[in-house]
């Protein structure tokens, strides 16, 4: 055989071999030796069964919480939306490196996650039970829509506490005194969620720490 013929034969053989490997790894094939290939319907049914199991687990872990708790809470309260990040998808942003190369899915995921936390904060803020209050008082009774909370003025020296207070310290003071509950740990999910909600409602107001 001529060398040129040999070369092209080798190239074609390699391409074919790679193609077979690719088809073997990614192509449709029986999942277990001997089984038929699954239809779309079967795959969907399998996936739904997995999702339903997860949902049942969630329901057991969260008794008394409606499956559409976010929609429910948003129906009751006016909650400020987070910053609009859609600008990140415009123009040349992120091209040429991995960080900053965002997709619509990213923007949507961030918005959904922050919404979960802020809406959870609103739930706790409006519920004496979730706050651990003992006299049926919840935060919204003095702070409807988180008004009059002034998160932008913290940290500030609070003489009544004898120290410089952060927003979470004031939240705990209120939980202990008018709400008559036990102070929450700084990293208690309820405290974090309430901080998120209070800050969300004050969106756009300039920071001014120390203001009395």
């Amino acid at each position, binding site marked *: 055989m001529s060398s040129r013929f040999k070369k092209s034969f080798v190239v074609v053989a390699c391409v074919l071999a790679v193609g077979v490997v690719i088809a073997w790894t990614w192509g449709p094939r029986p999942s277990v030796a001997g089984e038929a290939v699954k239809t779309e319907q079967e795959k969907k049914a399998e996936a739904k069964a997995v999702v339903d199991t997860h949902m049942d687990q969630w329901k057991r872990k969260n008794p008394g919480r409606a499956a559409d708790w976010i929609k429910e809470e948003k129906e*009751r309260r006016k909650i400020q939306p987070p910053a609009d990040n859609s600008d990140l998808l415009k123009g040349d942003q992120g091209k040429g490196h991995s960080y900053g190369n965002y997709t619509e899915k990213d923007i949507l995921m961030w918005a959904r996650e922050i919404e979960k936390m802020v809406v959870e904060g609103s739930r706790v803020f409006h519920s004496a039970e979730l706050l651990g209050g003992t006299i*049926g008082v919840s935060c919204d*009774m003095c702070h409807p829509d988180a*008004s009059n909370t*002034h998160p932008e003025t913290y940290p500030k020296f609070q003489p009544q506490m004898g120290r410089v207070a952060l927003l979470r310290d004031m939240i705990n003071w209120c939980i202990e005194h008018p709400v008559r509950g036990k102070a929450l740990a700084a990293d208690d999910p309820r405290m974090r969620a309430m901080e998120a909600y209070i800050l969300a409602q004050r969106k756009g107001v300039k920071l001014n720490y120390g203001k009395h």
Partner: protein
Amino acid sequence: MNNLDPQPDFVFYGGDLAQLGQEHELELGAQILKNLKAPLKIMVGEHDWYLDMGEKWRSLYGAPTYSWDHKGVHFVVLMSVMEKDFWTARGMTPMERMQTVAGLDNGVQSPFMVGEPQREWLKKDLARYPNNTPLIVFSHSPLYKLYKNWNFWTDDADEVQAILKRFDRVVVIHGHTHQLLTHRIGNIHFHGLLSTAWPWPYAPEGMPELTIQMNRPDPFNPNDGCGDGEVLVHADGLVDKVYNLWNRNPITVAKGYTASWGKAFVPPKPNRPSF
């Protein structure tokens, strides 16, 4: 109240005796109020009503809408926290309905209103009084449209104001807002009531021009921003509204202030304003 000398003509309770409308709350409140020496005139608030739709209230105090005459003044008490049914379609229990209404910022509830039947009652009740009759209307919701998000609002305020329009001077004393509020629309002078439980912050929008806000409450003082009040009624029917803020100097919104559209008898400006 019992130590006042002279005693007032009557003591008026502005509504929200209970928080969640429960029997034991209303009974305890009624028991406390029985200790007053002066006659009691009472008005219903939304917190008293929406657990059992006023059943217990009526058994304690009778019809929530009524009127009487005293020293030449015609007094009317309205039930101005009626709401369109929002609970049946949602399958709410009575307590769920009550807790929805109890939430100031709960947008599921309907706006407050007086409603057509009561407006008809009001027209008939006022029919025999000439235009120069001093007229004082007690209402839980403000009888004007201040801030819908917190139900500082009466949905049919325009219709109610139209019924009151023919009188020379009308004073509306309203509850619900838990703060010093002053307003005037034409011949109607509106005054708010303080709460004995806790103060509300001022609404972010819709503030009447005549209102000079009270100082923002100090959270570290559980009584600050709360109080009671007095209404001094002049011969022409206009009033001096005295806000007896606990732990603070009283503030008087004199008849001359609303009469002059805010030019004379101006109450003190706050030195700790809301922000």
